[in-house]
């Protein structure tokens, strides 16, 4: 059998599979976005299989052991960009401290998809409907990007600049995602609302992390952070909602208040999966359900 591209019948596009990050970064610096980084290929191959065109030159990240590891520290866990959703869901420290990430990883498609899908691919594919970003937003994750120029870390909440646009430069690769462990007295609440459990793209998903203050009186919100999928052009945090809830008693938050705050945070659209109005109202319901869960977890309700 001769080495031809199966799609075009021409000599295959260059395929580069470095075993060190330094080599990968040199290739990235040289060819920038002309060379496509590939990880689990669960997003990329769907497009390649559908379009009968010649494949672009490939930078295969799957041989980089340093990008695949999951390292737990005292305050956070650092997840390599090419760690699979399956390996994240199985990790004992993540299971113990970051239950929402286990839940989102286990909803990233079927088992066969989870075995291949990487966290880095889920982020870099930059779909507004992706399942792990809401959870990463709620937990306050930070991303580490590398290039031949050096390494930088940025808040994940600022990473998505617009539909399918991110702050990653053309010569950069996503190296890892650091997720801090939440404080004591938090309630983590994650829901994906879709049509069929394993595979469906979400109509809307929300992750919430609500930290209580159990002072002398009724429990109040010390801090609340959120992440939403499918309610705007990118995965969205909800900063006005977070601000408006701070300091409020958990038992005294009403629907109108949540609706008002969320109106500024979300920008849902009508599409084939759902309508904007439905998404807004489900988003409010999900926030109220998270607040209920936090109130029930408080010692004095």
């Amino acid at each position: 059998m001769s080495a031809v591209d199966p799609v075009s019948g021409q000599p295959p596009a260059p395929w580069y599979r470095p075993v060190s990050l330094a080599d990968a970064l040199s290739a990235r610096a040289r060819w920038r976005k002309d060379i496509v980084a590939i990880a689990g290929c669960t997003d990329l191959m769907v497009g390649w299989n559908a379009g009968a065109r010649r494949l672009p030159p490939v930078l295969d990240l799957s041989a980089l052991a340093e990008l695949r590891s999951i390292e737990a520290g005292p305050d956070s866990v650092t997840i390599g960009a090419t760690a699979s959703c399956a390996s994240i869901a199985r990790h004992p420290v993540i299971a113990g401290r970051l239950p929402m990430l286990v839940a989102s990883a286990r909803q990233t498609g079927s088992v066969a998809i989870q075995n291949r899908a990487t966290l880095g691919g889920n982020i870099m594919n930059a779909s507004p409907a992706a399942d792990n970003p809401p959870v990463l937003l709620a937990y306050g994750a930070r991303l580490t990007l590398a290039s031949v120029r050096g390494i930088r870390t940025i808040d994940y909440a600022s990473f998505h600049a617009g539909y399918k646009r991110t702050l990653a430069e053309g010569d950069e690769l996503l190296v890892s995602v650091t997720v801090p462990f939440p404080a004591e007295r938090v309630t983590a609440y994650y829901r994906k609302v879709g049509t069929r459990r394993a595979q469906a793209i979400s109509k809307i998903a929300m992750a919430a992390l609500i930290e209580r203050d159990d002072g002398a009186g009724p429990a109040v919100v010390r801090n609340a952070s959120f992440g939403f999928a499918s309610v705007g052009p990118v995965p969205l945090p909800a900063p006005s909602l977070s601000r408006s809830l701070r300091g409020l008693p958990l038992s005294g938050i009403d629907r109108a208040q949540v609706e008002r705050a969320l109106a500024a945070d979300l920008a849902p659209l009508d599409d084939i999966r759902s309508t904007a109005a439905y998404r807004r109202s489900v988003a409010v319901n999900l926030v109220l359900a998270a607040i209920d869960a936090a109130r029930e977890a408080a010692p004095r309700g």
Partner: protein
Amino acid sequence: MIPAPDLAFTLNGRTVSTVDGSIGAPSMRLLDLLRLHAGQTGTKEGCGEGECGACAVLVDGELVNSCLVPVGQLHGCTVTSIEGLPRVDPLVTAFARAGAAQCGICTPGMVLAARALLDRVPQPTLDDVREALAGNLCRCTGYARIYTAVLDAATDAGPGKAGGR
């Protein structure tokens, strides 16, 4: 620019490699290598986009959809398609006994999805089975017989009744 790498991996116990010509372009789908070049046609193509599981195989014991795997990523791996399972695998027997196959298109992927589950969770619950097989679509059986077959195979292979492995 950069040459395609030398590439070798194990497929159902045999070595395939770019050196002996049994692998062409690294971008080739594992599914095409199996069906068109390695004569292992037990693996089926349904959707070609990761949704149906008809093309599922095991790579290093983990279930993957071979329509979404370029062979260039498999260097050093062990690939098992349905042809690579032992003839006496209790799952195959249980599928036959339960009437869990009709047209049979989904069956190789179903059996391998179940194999991956039982290797990890030898005594699964019905919910475990449902979740493990959620990415494998069947248009014929309505699933109930498939779930029964997997649960039966787990019992057959249980302690004291060593199955195929």
